[in-house]
């Protein structure tokens, strides 16, 4: 280890201990007894054992105070010292316990991304906006396609009653979440006659659903003719008339004068 590197580690760790960024336990967590046993000279071990045996309490502070930071940095390998410094820095910067932002918010299908987006405002509102730009910028054109859809599109689909998209069930939850910063236009060229940007779409009101119409008859391979259409229309009217007939309108054919074919009155007429 060069003198410059040793001086750097010495100053860094000593200052960290001085200002409270690090504790002796942090140092001993890397400069473990095993590391010390391998790299510390025996005279230093003599001092350390003597101090430990003479002290009422043996703790990392005693070890660091006895060995001293310059001696530690002189003998402990730089990789171990760097690991210690890096851990201290990450912790001081608040990165030690925070997981990297998930990239699934944009890349994964909507159904999988919904729980992440929905739970974020409750836990850490500031973390919601951060992952999206990172994921969008890192994924580039791949993340841009509107396969996942914007929230406006999902809302519109829900209004139209689109049943088959997996995100339809959870769409209201997503729609209530305030949108993060606008992502900008997609990289693909806008469609002709459509709106210029997806972010500019306004929420659409649910259109009244028309009564279900009768599904068209499956077409046969035979060419259709005019008679086919007429037969089909007549059947429809016939069915409609059947449904509207009441019981009072039914005729008892066995007693009707128009339909009786035998009896006295009929014979008298004849």
């Amino acid at each position, binding site marked *: 280890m060069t003198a410059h590197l040793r001086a750097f580690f010495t100053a860094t760790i000593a200052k960290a201990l001085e200002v409270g960024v690090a504790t002796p336990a942090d140092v001993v967590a890397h400069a473990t007894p095993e590391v010390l046993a391998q790299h510390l000279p025996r005279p230093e*071990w*003599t001092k350390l054992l003597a101090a430990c045996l003479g002290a009422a309490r043996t703790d990392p502070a005693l*070890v660091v105070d006895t060995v001293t930071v310059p001696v530690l940095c002189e003998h402990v390998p730089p990789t171990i010292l760097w690991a210690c410094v890096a851990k201290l820095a990450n912790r001081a910067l608040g990165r030690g316990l925070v997981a990297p932002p998930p990239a699934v918010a944009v890349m994964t299908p909507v159904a999988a991304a919904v729980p992440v987006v929905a739970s974020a405002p409750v836990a850490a509102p500031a973390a919601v906006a951060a992952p999206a730009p990172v994921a969008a910028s890192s994924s580039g054109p791949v993340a841009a396609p509107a396969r996942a859809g914007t929230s406006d599109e999902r809302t519109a689909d829900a209004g139209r009653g689109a049943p088959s998209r997996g995100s339809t069930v959870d769409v209201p939850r997503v729609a209530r979440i305030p949108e993060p910063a606008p992502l900008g236009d997609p990289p693909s060229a806008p469609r002709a006659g459509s709106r210029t940007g997806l972010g500019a779409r306004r929420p659409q009101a649910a259109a009244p659903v028309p009564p279900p119409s009768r599904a068209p008859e499956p077409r046969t391979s035979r060419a259709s003719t005019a008679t086919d259409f007429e037969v089909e229309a007549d059947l429809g009217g016939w069915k409609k008339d059947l449904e509207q007939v009441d019981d009072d309108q039914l005729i008892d054919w066995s007693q009707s004068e128009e339909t009786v074919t035998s009896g006295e009155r009929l014979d008298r007429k004849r």
Partner: protein
Amino acid sequence: MMESGLTQEIFGPADVLRHATPEVLATNLPPELLSKVLASSLAAGSMTPERVLETVTPELLARHLPHDVLWECIAAAAERAGIVGGR
């Protein structure tokens, strides 16, 4: 002999470490033993002669420490016990 003296309380751990000084231990014990001694002391919160000898057993003492040091320990204990008179 070291184990028997400790078991029979002819001498105790503190008597052993009075001769097996930190310098002797640091000079003669292998690194893995030094590491165990310090680690166990840090875990327990103190380094006592009893704890040192729990790690550095009499067998290990006899294996790594100079025998004249161990003999001085035994001789001093015998002198304290008053059994050294007939030289």
